[in-house]
């Protein structure tokens, strides 16, 4: 019992890892990269985090975490609040429900699963954003954002799996 408090803090930090990583992705997408080719295009990176952790650690990325991550995302991006919360909840719910399907499947299947879910999420975002707030984006820009998001998936996914192996094994 000597290290009880320390162990609890350590445990808590490890438990918060998925949520923190989603927020790091939010900040990464907000950083000004100042690349002419990427002007006005922001890949929706946090979606990757929400999907990954809902799939592999649904006990850590619970609906309330997805909700809070969505709220932070909307605030940082200056978007109307509530939309990302709903989208992240939808991704979390769908992924957690389909865990059995993804279990033991190859990486490509998981990637395709992410691509499908992300497409659904973007359609919801588009519908809510334009219906409720009159914020209609350029469809071309949205499509590019979607493709880049899907294209980016393997890298964070690989990093997360490394982190999961080293930090969350046996937790």
């Amino acid at each position, binding site marked *: 019992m000597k290290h009880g408090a320390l162990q609890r803090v350590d445990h808590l930090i490890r438990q918060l890892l998925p949520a923190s990583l989603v927020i790091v992705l939010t*900040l*990464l*997408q*907000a*950083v*000004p*990269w*100042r*690349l*002419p080719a*990427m*002007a*006005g*295009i*922001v890949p*929706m990176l946090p979606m990757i985090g929400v999907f990954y952790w809902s799939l592999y650690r649904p006990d850590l990325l619970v*609906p*309330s975490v*997805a*909700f809070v991550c*969505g*709220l*932070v995302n909307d*605030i*940082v*991006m*200056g*978007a*109307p*609040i*509530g*939309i990302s*919360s*709903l989208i992240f*909840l939808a991704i979390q*719910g769908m992924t957690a429900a389909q865990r059995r399907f993804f279990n033991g499947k190859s990486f490509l299947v998981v990637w395709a699963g992410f691509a499908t879910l992300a497409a659904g999420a973007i359609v919801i*975002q588009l519908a*809510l*954003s334009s219906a*409720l*707030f*009159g*914020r*209609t*984006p*350029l469809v071309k*820009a*949205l499509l590019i*954002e979607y493709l880049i998001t899907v294209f980016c998936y393997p890298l964070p996914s690989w990093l997360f799996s490394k982190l999961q192996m080293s930090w969350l094994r046996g937790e």
Partner: protein
Amino acid sequence: MKQHPGMVGRLATLRLLAQRFAFLTLVLASFALMLLGKADTILVERLRVFVDDGLAPVLQVMSRPAAAIASVVNAVHDLAALRAENVRLAEENERLMHWQTVARELDNENRALKSQLNFMPDPDAAFITARVIGDTGGAFVHSMLLNVGKRDGVRKGQAVIAGENLVGRIAEVGDRSARILLLTDINSHIPVIIENSRAKAILSGDNTDRTRLNYLAPNSNPAVGNRIVTSGHGGAFPPGLPVGVIASLQDGIVRVEPFVHRYQLEYVTVVDYGLPGVLPSDQTDGRDQ
């Protein structure tokens, strides 16, 4: 301790029910937030400012390496176009030398005329230079986050310029962060004039790179290449800030290419012209006007 198997099953069912209920509650909460965002903008703005202020130092640190990467990429780009750029600049320099002479003459003439008329000059503007620490939004929102806030003297509604050109205005201010609404955002509407014809119009963003010129008088004959500057109407911006040039005229829609591109912005200037602005700023709140 041993539990009855039926009890375990019931507990699991209860837990599942609770989880479902929590999920549903959160979905409803998301919708509630969206409606709240439409109804009570002040409360939502406070929340935004609070989170932005908290994250600003983190973003500031993260934007440094990003800026370094960007400068390397841009340096490589520039290197490739060095010769062509040099020729272009030499030509431009020649042209500008001519204009400089003209400007000097006009300046002298202007000064002489002003002194004859007893002209009251505009007050000098105070300005704050700020770093862009967040290029946020993407396809839905065109906004940027700055590393200055109330404690540096930034107020809501102030104009943001880069060089001499208009970038947008301050939409939200925290203690140490501020958000610019760019010209291209769908919520940006700015009173402008066409520089040479003095025809008034409203420049509205529509989330594309090129903004639209609305409410233009029918006989104003806009042409591609005409410069657009702020008109100063509405008290939001001083008159004469360069905004962009007319880029296309199609089906009666006049599109303006802004002088400032958002990917170029690393440092911007927040300018206080001492104008009241169209937004009720924090300074004027609660005071007699």
